[in-house]
């Protein structure tokens, strides 16, 4: 299935993804409203961007007592039904990664729903760090990048371009 795939070493922390995500909401962009997160540690100079990976066995979905969390059959996304959600927060406790959170304004669980298969964060990623694709595409990109690191390959490649 397609998920939001993040090439961490392309992200320069412009935070456009967070903004595009939260701008969908009429209450406006409060950081907590976004369902994608750009973590920036200036002291350590670390940027790490991540969002829900729509787990195959999704703890949030498994634990939900009211059946509010279900899998969208078209996109494969794990989605919260706001009307069914009782606000028990069990899903937030269950997610080992922290990519489902409790929305204080609506008093429901909130997470990435892949924008019904047209994720806004990806469209707004000018660095092309975010992609909407199969996770194995990322693995392929990483394997390809190993090639560049081999001695000789890089030089030859760059020389060819001139």
């Amino acid at each position, binding site marked *: 299935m397609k998920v939001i795939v993040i090439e961490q070493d392309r992200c320069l922390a412009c935070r456009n993804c967070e903004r595009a995500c939260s701008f969908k909401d009429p209450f406006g962009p409060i950081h907590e409203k976004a369902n994608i997160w750009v973590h920036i540690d*200036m002291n350590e100079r670390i940027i790490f961007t991540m969002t829900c990976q729509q787990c195959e066995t999704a703890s949030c979905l498994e634990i939900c007592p009211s059946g509010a969390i279900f899998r969208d059959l078209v996109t494969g996304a794990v989605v919260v039904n706001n009307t069914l959600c009782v606000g028990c927060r069990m899903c937030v406790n269950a997610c080992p990664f922290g990519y489902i959170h409790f929305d204080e304004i609506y008093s429901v669980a909130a997470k990435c729903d892949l924008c019904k298969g047209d994720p806004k964060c990806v*469209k707004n990623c*000018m660095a092309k760090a975010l992609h909407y694709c199969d996770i194995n595409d990322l693995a392929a990109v990483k394997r390809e990048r190993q090639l560049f690191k081999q001695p000789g390959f890089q030089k030859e490649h760059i020389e060819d371009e001139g």
Partner: protein
Amino acid sequence: MRVKTIVPSGVVPTLCRMCETRCAINVHINNNYMTEISPLEGHPVNQGRICPRGGAALDLFYHPDRILKPLKRMSDGSFKEIPYSLALDEIIGKMSTLKSDYGARSVGVWKGEGLGFYQQEDYARRFIHGFGSPNYFSNDSACYNGRYIGYHLVCGFWNSYPAFDQAGLIILLGSNPPICHPPFMREFADARSKGAKLVMIDPRLNPVACYADVFAQPYPGTDCALVWGLIRYLIKTNNYDEDIVNNNTIGFDKILAYAKKFTPEYVEQQTGIFADVVEEIALLIIKNRPKTSIFPGAGLEHNENGVNCVRALAILSCLIGALGWPSGLWRPEMLGIRSLTLYDELPMDDQGPIGADKFPVLYDIRKECHTMTAMDYMLGNGAYPLKGIILTAANPAVSNPNTAKVEKALSNLDLLVVSDFFMTKTARLAHYILPAATFLEREELHFYPTRHRVNLTSKVARTEGIKTEYQLWHNLAHGLGFGDKYFPWKNEKDVNKWLLEPSGLTVEKLRRHPQGYAYKPVEYQKHLIDKLNTPSGKLEFASPYLKKLGLPEIPEYLPPYYLAKADDNYPFILTTGARKSLLYHSRHQNIPRFRNVHPEAEMEIHPADASDLGIEDGEAVKVISETGTLIIRAAVKKSVELRQGVVEIYHGWEDWRVNFLTCDTINDPISGFPLLKGVPVRIEKIE
């Protein structure tokens, strides 16, 4: 507001002009209402992506505060709606009176950035010459011109955006690309994935530095010393392009002699960058010659020696051998179209263009007058009176230095006409405010010179009662009697036809290329065939032209004002202008969702400085300079983000105008740029 869209429902491709990047977008229309902006696939600039700023173009278009009818200021200071034809008649009447009483040059035009200019700039330039005045002013006199002039003095050209993705080493100075040039992020990442190195030089740490191989934090305004240190290192170790030096340059001997004193130790003493870091950068350059991209941001321009720093960088690029490489320096060629300016047909050089005596290079190279000197003319302290300004979407009451003086000067005018979307701080001072058209309401040619590409934008919508920029100048010119001669075209489409005629391209053809039309392949080695556009036809490491004007022949380094004239009363150095991701200078503050992200102005300060002053994060403080005072909240940053002793305030806030603190009399002698990045200030806790 009554809006008519180009099609009742559908998708229209055009370019975004919420910032200067100009990404290709699709505007979605449903029942005569524009509902969404999405990226257009296939344009090389944004490659199918956009940013939230572009996505909010419709927030701007349909904004409830948008000015839709002409306004006239009454004697009690309030504004009253008047019919367009009446406003136009009154403005034309006043302009004619000023012309007959004080001469045509008592009136000037001022181009701003708010409308999203491209072609519009030349309408303004054409209009004022047609009127008979040399006085064209613009926002460029505090952004862009400095770099344009710096590169033109050395090379006679400037490819403002090199192909970063083909570089082995990228050096950024005073720039924050994720915010000011979003597509650079993609190019940097492409380059890095092929092993390129990144060096970032900035007094302020921004997230790009997280991926920089070297991040160096100089004292504001000292970059030029670092550049000279690198030049010295390359020459001393014999790692420079001798072919270029021997065949294409003048003045190398002078560079050789001057560079000697810039040892890594001297550079460290001037810039605060450790000597071994200077060497490390030099070694990276040597390893990655000639594929080195150097990008100076606007941060370098706002110093009293900014152009020389840019010139030194251009020389460094030449020594590296970057000339003729896609990632380096090369001469973009323009499409052969007609020009709207009247500099050949109707030159005004002998009419005393304002500031051309003090800053002749600015006028020679950019044909622009000096906005800061204009304030003196407005206040009656110039060689002749400046009584009227027609200003389109500039906001000098926020963005020009010495705000108190700017407000006084603008208030002293007999006629201030402001064409804008909103009631800006500048518009409040106007006698007449004319409603302006957004980029979605006009058709114009856009060039991407470094990609040899041209686009024609679409007139996606028309708003009742709002004239386009062309109509404004056209109507004024016809009312003033020079319309038939200089503005004969009925509408923008006719102008574009006339402009394109010699190129063989047509409006219709460009319409079929929303992804842009590449007018010719880029010839990176073009400089080898043709003479360069400098007085000598060569790369001018030393400029006889500047020498003749009494300016330094080579780009000498001068220690910044605050170091040269240290004053214990003002122990902090204020830099202004670091960008905010959703704002565009003074624009977009009135878009509520943007304002949630950037709610209020703040002064960034080092934690040690804050603790010395007893200031907590979020506490209001008083900032005092020789020019003025500002009360603002302190934002205590991490110690790595700023140098101790340096504070930073954004330049565009309408309600916290940092330019009350900056002064208009310390200028770069070449570009005339104001000192905005090294202002001595004192900070007081408010008890």
